[in-house]
């Protein structure tokens, strides 16, 4: 499509942008002038520009979704902004040149004035707004077919998994279905504790996860392993004997432990994370429903491995308590069951409880945009939210990947948007209800 210009008077964009003082140029409709719906204008930041020009950006979405633009690490929604002005788009002279013999429509001026030709009148342009990745769908997809004991057997029977791949997603499948950047998708998978097995991203069925952890703990006792120094190789080979594939054993260490050091060769040393192991058992216990606090604590202490000391503050973001008469009851309300999107999350929160005290609400509404240190927050507890605007302290509350991700909105911004805050007296705890 790019040939020599058939008309040497054609100056194109260049002639407009570099028009000499005291000179003129004719503006005309291009010989290919038309609606050109396939030409679009996209306004971008300088920093995004580099990403796009280096082909590190893509549009993602299903036909029924509004497309988003993703860079490596961020997601942007695309907004069309119309204009009532006439925006004449003028390409360089060597673009959009058809065969020279196009029949001529308009008459040409006889003078020798240079011409710049308008290819289309742009009705507006697209703008990008950074948005949270749309990760709720990810959980939905992965929950269709969680990994369980049957999968383990199928691996042995060669190729039998080839039969039924419904509800199974490879990385590429997910990229084409989830509106999130690669980095955000990865951290979404991490927060769902998903693992890649035989090319498919899976989450483990709760019972299965429980089985692996118990097998690991059982083997720790049998083999006299220290919970602070688990050899990855040993764990994998022993769990394999018990019927757990190595990816699963490795994943189990990742879910319930932290890497201590790289160890020798490719072997790594892991330490069990007391909190995560305790939380696992608390969840299992509370699966049965609401319990009296005392009974729950008794059972919890009994269930966790020896040497671990469960305390209720480990369960932040996992449980809620309520007082019925003099009894305190505890029940499961896990942040991992809440949606990422703030509107939906707040609606579920207020369905659960019409009124929330700050200490209960706080774990569920943290935004990863800015964290307040809890100490800092306590000192300013009784002041008005907006007065702490601007003073931002970073990471101090445990940031979790289930935090709300709303670009440009801080925790207090979220609260202002979705809650109504009341405080009967100056020294009373503030209470939040739905807006």
């Amino acid at each position: 499509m790019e040939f020599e210009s058939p008309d040497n008077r054609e100056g194109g964009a260049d002639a407009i942008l570099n028009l000499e003082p005291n000179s003129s140029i004719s503006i005309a409709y291009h010989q290919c002038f038309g609606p050109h719906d396939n030409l679009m204008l996209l306004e971008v930041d300088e920093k995004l520009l580099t990403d796009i020009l280096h082909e590190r950006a893509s549009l993602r979405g299903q036909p029924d979704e509004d497309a988003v633009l993703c860079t490596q690490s961020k997601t942007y929604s695309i907004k069309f902004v119309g204009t009532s002005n006439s925006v004449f788009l003028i390409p360089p002279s060597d673009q959009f040149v058809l065969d020279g013999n196009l029949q001529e429509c308009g008459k040409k001026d006889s003078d020798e004035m240079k011409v710049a030709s308008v290819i289309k009148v742009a009705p507006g342009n697209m703008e990008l707004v950074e948005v949270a990745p749309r990760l709720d769908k990810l959980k939905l997809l992965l929950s269709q077919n969680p990994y369980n004991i049957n999968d383990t057997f199928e691996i042995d029977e060669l190729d039998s998994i080839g039969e039924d791949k419904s509800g199974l997603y490879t990385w590429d499948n997910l990229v084409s279905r989830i509106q999130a950047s690669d980095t955000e998708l990865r951290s979404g998978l991490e927060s769902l504790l998903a693992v890649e097995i035989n090319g498919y991203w899976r989450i483990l069925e709760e019972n299965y996860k429980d089985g692996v952890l118990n097998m690991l703990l059982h083997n720790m006792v049998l083999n006299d392993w220290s919970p602070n120094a688990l050899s990855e190789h040993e764990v994998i080979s022993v769990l394999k004997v018990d019927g757990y594939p190595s990816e699963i054993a490795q994943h189990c260490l990742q879910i319930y432990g932290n890497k201590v050091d790289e160890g020798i060769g490719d072997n790594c040393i892991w330490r069990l994370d007391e909190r995560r192991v305790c939380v696992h058992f608390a969840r299992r216990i509370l699966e049965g429903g609401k319990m009296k606090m005392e009974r729950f604590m008794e059972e919890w202490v009994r269930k966790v491995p020896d040497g671990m000391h469960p305390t209720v503050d480990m369960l932040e973001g996992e449980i809620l308590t309520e007082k019925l008469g003099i009894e305190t009851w505890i029940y499961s309300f896990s942040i991992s069951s809440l949606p990422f999107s703030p509107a939906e999350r707040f609606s579920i929160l207020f369905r659960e409880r019409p009124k929330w005290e700050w200490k209960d609400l706080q774990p569920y509404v943290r935004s990863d945009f800015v964290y307040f240190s809890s100490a800092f927050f306590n000192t300013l507890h009784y002041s008005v939210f907006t007065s702490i605007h601007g003073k931002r302290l970073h990471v101090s509350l445990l940031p979790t990947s289930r935090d709300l991700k709303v670009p440009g909105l801080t925790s207090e911004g979220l609260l202002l948007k979705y809650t109504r805050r009341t405080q009967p007296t100056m020294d009373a705890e503030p209470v939040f209800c739905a807006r």
Partner: protein
Amino acid sequence: MEIKVKCSCGEGKCPEWAIVELQGVVEAQSSFQDCLQNLQIGVLCRPSSQENYTLTVGYHELMGAKVPLKKPMLVLKKLKVPDEEEKDGDSSSSSRVEMDVIGIIRHKILFKTRPKALISKPQPIVKEKVGSSNPIMPN
């Protein structure tokens, strides 16, 4: 579905396009409505070394200036590429969409004033000559 945004020109070499923007709509005379190609819209003139411009459309003159865009604008072209791995059944529907960056816009020449009628402009020369001597009447 993932559509890669491509840039065949490469960074730094992305050709610069221009925008001439004015308020309202330019309407061609009805005899030209269906045949706008190659028709002159007006004449852009830079009367001095400053970045001020005039655009003369018919009897009207617009005053404007060259302004840098706050953020650059990319010209994207949507292409339908036939999919290589066509399946026999529905070869017609199997095309892939590609987005190609074909240009970048950093400046526009913006005319935000209402047009001034050239005819009513006081001229030092004899009045009756103005109408006929106007050289930039389109066709």
